[in-house]
């Protein structure tokens, strides 16, 4: 049977304008890569849909897979701006094949 190893998968919801800050943090944590997926709309504490996509207020999900220590370093690094920048971070354990890649 194929061998898998455990890594952390981190997903960060971020304004498009702030993505660079997030990916810079990922690079600083020395993680091998990241993938960005689009977001359509949402509701938060402001209590309203976001649809003004031309307005520079659209969001994306930044997803990255990393070993636990690097993931924690990233979380630590990014925690101070989570609230001020309105980011949302969640992470969980996943199995990956080719663990040496991450």
């Amino acid at each position, binding site marked *: 049977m194929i061998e898998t190893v455990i890594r952390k998968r981190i997903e960060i919801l971020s304004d498009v304008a702030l993505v660079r800050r997030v990916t810079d943090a990922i690079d600083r944590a020395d993680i091998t890569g990241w993938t960005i997926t689009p977001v359509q709309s949402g509701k938060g504490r402001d209590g309203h849909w976001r649809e003004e996509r031309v307005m*520079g207020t659209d969001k994306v999900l930044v997803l990255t897979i990393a070993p636990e220590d690097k993931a924690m370093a990233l979380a630590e690094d990014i925690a101070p701006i989570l609230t001020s920048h309105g980011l949302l971070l969640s992470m969980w354990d996943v199995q990956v094949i080719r663990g040496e890649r991450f």
Partner: protein
Amino acid sequence: MTPRYGPAMDATTLQTFTSPVVLFFVLGILAALARSDLAIPEAIAKGMSLYLMAAIGLKGGVAVSESGFSVTVVIALVAGIAAGFILPILAFWLIRGFGRLDRINAGAVAAHYGSISVVTFVTAVEILEFQGKPSAGYMVAVMATMESPAILAGLLLARGFGAENGQSMREMLHEVFFNSSVVLLLGAFAIGLIGGTDGFADVSPFFEAGFKGVLCIFLLDMGLIAARRMMDSRAVTWRLGAIAIFLPLVNGAVGTILGTVVGLDVGSAAALGVLCASASYIAVPAAMRLALPEADPGIYLTMSLSITFPFNVLVNIGLISAFASMIAGQGGLVP
């Protein structure tokens, strides 16, 4: 009120409201109020906004390639940049005092009102042309240069000098001078300038003939978005709402007077008035997310997009146009 003023206003208002461009905007507002699910795909809306900027930039450049640069152009540019730096200060003071916002949010809002809205400008150009008071081609360059100064001014107001560290200041300045609309507007302006009327002939069916139609659909989308945001908004108090009407009135008058005083023709002075009256809702919000992420987009977007923008399109452009004719016609200010 001179007799010339009254009819001018009536005609203005009428013309505005039978123009398809404005009617599509109203349709968008009504559809959103009726909670219809009508929506323009995001990619199409972005594509249209790029198209409008490229087209207006080209048109301005071609116009200047014919008229040539003159002292007036330089004066208009300087006037625009000055307004971009000074108007946010007035706005900031008003928003902190009467509007009761904290410093960060007041700075962010002030940046929006000092900067400009391309679509408001474009709509005004159409209406002014229709009224027989075309604005000069170089006003496009004025618009492009007015995008950025207010961002800096708003930032300084919010944070004070030296509060930013070096890295993020560089990031900001880069965003301010190379944000996509500045680049596209000035780039297309330069292309129009280089290519001139001949070079433009080839591409004019695309950039000229389609212009008003695209503007219709774009304003339909803007109407939908502005009204939906209005209905969902909670962060905007009546004080802020009043400011979102008062500022464009004052700034519009200031800009028109400024334009008339420095010697612009009626149409161009009105266009400068509209630029001052308009509030950004595309470029500046993106810059503010970057530079002032703690500021609440629910405040500055709702004010600029849902109140000021419709007020400008539906009412204020007409007022400014009439005011420009009045002070130019009366010869009161510029003898």
